[in-house]
């Protein structure tokens, strides 16, 4: 029925912090070649979900199975955070940009290719004496980085110190850096936060082209409803750690539970850090 291959299967995932159930029995699927958005009011457990997915938290219960095209089924919840990126090829970005601020943009992207380069440098021995094999690998890594930078329109800033650049650009650099890890699933935590309307339109285009041209799957946490409604193929809505709705953008837009969670009843008014833009409110 679904033409897209199953990539990630979240099965009854729960995460408890003391008395707080941050994620409560969450199940949903992510398919290859699609953009899946996870939305919900502040504190709904979206970032906690990302942390469980990428090995930064150990979930209290449940499984996260990745159907890797080459390596079979991997249980992400049992992997260390660095293994999630290096073995499962699931790479994330962060809600508050986490670049290496004192390094240049190009260096940031080269660090992302660390494992490949480290292997080519034979644990630094071949690199120390500068064997041709290592030089080739390094040249190749630079090529990959330059290619990503060109694609994200950042090549002019390749030698700039990353921390000195404007915020919107840093967000794009973080995506470029994540792409250098060679992901099959890219998890973006609020990539449009702090972007101006033009930048966020560019982001829409970028996300769609990544999925279209490279067959990536994208998992997206986003507050900007323009981005979510325009690019997502599938949306999963969380509130208080529970999934309250799931479906296509059109379905979500008309779902009474979602509208209640967002625009809500009296006591949730303070929650409304994110609102549907006027035209998208049904």
């Amino acid at each position, binding site marked *: 029925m679904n033409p897209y291959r199953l990539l990630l299967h979240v099965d009854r995932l729960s995460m408890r912090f003391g008395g707080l159930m941050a994620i409560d029995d969450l199940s949903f699927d992510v398919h290859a070649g699609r953009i899946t958005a996870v939305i919900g009011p502040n504190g709904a457990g979206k970032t906690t979900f990302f942390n469980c997915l990428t090995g930064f938290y150990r979930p209290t219960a449940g499984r996260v199975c990745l159907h890797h095209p080459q390596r079979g089924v991997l249980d992400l919840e049992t992997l260390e955070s*660095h*293994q999630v990126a290096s073995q499962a090829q699931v790479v994330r970005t962060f809600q508050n940009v*986490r670049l290496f601020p004192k390094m240049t943009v190009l260096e940031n992207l080269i660090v992302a290719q*660390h494992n490949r380069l480290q292997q080519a440098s034979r644990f630094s021995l071949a690199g*120390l004496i500068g064997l041709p094999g290592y030089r080739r690998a390094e040249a190749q890594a630079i090529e990959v980085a330059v290619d990503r930078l060109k694609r994200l329109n950042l*090549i002019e800033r390749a030698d700039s110190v990353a921390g000195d650049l404007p915020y919107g650009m840093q967000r794009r650099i973080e995506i470029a850096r994540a792409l250098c890890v060679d992901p099959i699933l890219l998890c973006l935590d609020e990539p449009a936060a702090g972007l101006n309307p033009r930048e966020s339109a560019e982001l829409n285009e970028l996300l769609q082209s990544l999925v279209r041209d490279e067959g990536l799957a994208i998992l997206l946490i986003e507050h900007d409803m323009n981005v979510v409604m325009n690019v997502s193929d599938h949306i999963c809505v969380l509130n208080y750690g529970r999934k309250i709705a799931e479906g296509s953008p059109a379905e979500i837009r008309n779902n009474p539970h979602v509208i209640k969670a967002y625009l809500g009843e009296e006591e949730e008014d303070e929650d409304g850090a994110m609102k549907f833009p006027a035209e998208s409110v049904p």
Partner: protein
Amino acid sequence: MPVVVLAHQAPSAKERLRDAAAVAFVALLLGIPMLGLTTVDQGGALHVATRWPVLGLFVALCFAGRLLARFGLDRLQLARRVQRPAVGAPARRYRALPSWLGWGCFGIALVLPIVFSDNRYIVDTATTVLIYVMLGWGLNVVVGLAGLLVLGYVAFYAVGAYCYALLATQYGWGFWQALPLAGGLAAGFGLLLGWPTLRLRGDYLAIVTLGFGEIVRIILVNWTDLSNGPNGIASIPRPTFFGLPFKPGDDGTTFASFFGLEFSPLHRIFFLYYLILALAMLTNLFVSRLRKLPIGRAWEAVREDDIACQALGINITNVKLSAFAIGAMLGGCAGVFFAARQGFISPESFTFNESAIILAIVVLGGMGSQLGVVLASLVLVLLPELGRDFAEYRMLLFGAAMILIMIWKPGGILSHREPTLRYRGESGSP
């Protein structure tokens, strides 16, 4: 307490007086116990006497000094703002500075013993500076590049020194044989310290490593069977010139007799100088090459943001441990040289004070900057030497100089970071 003076407007006379009065008040508080009261010996018992005139003079001096200093600083600031050049022009010149400065330093180091061939004191002091340079470069890997604040670096220095001392005195090992083994052993100790502290950061890591340094020193003091306790290990063999010893007399071939030279104790001093110069330059080459390899970039990335590193698939355990091991290895090698040069070592040489000086060299030089370490070691070793004339005020001078440097250059003497690779440089055209 001092009145905050906004930079863009000159303060009024009243503000200046108030500012100086605040400083004078602090001086008074500090001065009462330090200057106002003194003890005198009266008939075998100590009595407290007062020195109010001295205190009054001190407070007045502080008042006047602050008034003058504030006035001078304001004038300076004003003048600087007026003649500040266009942005951009001086930055380029500044960037080119370190490269020729480094070669200049190396050139001076190379000819120094030849120029001062009759001055043993200068060559000896230069050797000490170079030991600290090497230690600084070693610690720079851990603190400057990987960002792991280690306060017990002297432990690795001690491991290297004792390793050579024991191997040489007990088993007759030579300097060159012991060097790799001592380096390896120190690296092992680095891993030993690194493993349990992997999850710690910043202040917490500093406390644990401080404890580690003390543990090693206290073991050396108390494990008398191994280390001869506080008496230390004496008559450690000096390094030889490829098997030729530096000694007078005709028993066997010596360095002097082999080259047909008149024996002079200076030969050994010169040899030791060039030996540590070679070791230090080797360290420099090693560290600056590592910095441009994936492992070096990973060290810096871990310093910048270890969580982002994990998200990019970097195993930060390995990265941190390799930084510990390599930093410790370099410290161990410096320790071997130290033992061979001194001929006598005891736990006294490996106190926390040494760790603090090495760390100060790295921080003062500008974290991660190789040349900064050289300049900072020059300052930190030479200042106490130059200050010998000031007798008991020596450390006061030393402390004041450090404070001034940190005010003048909060990021260290050379805080500029050179990228490990460039797009425009590497691939030719943009």
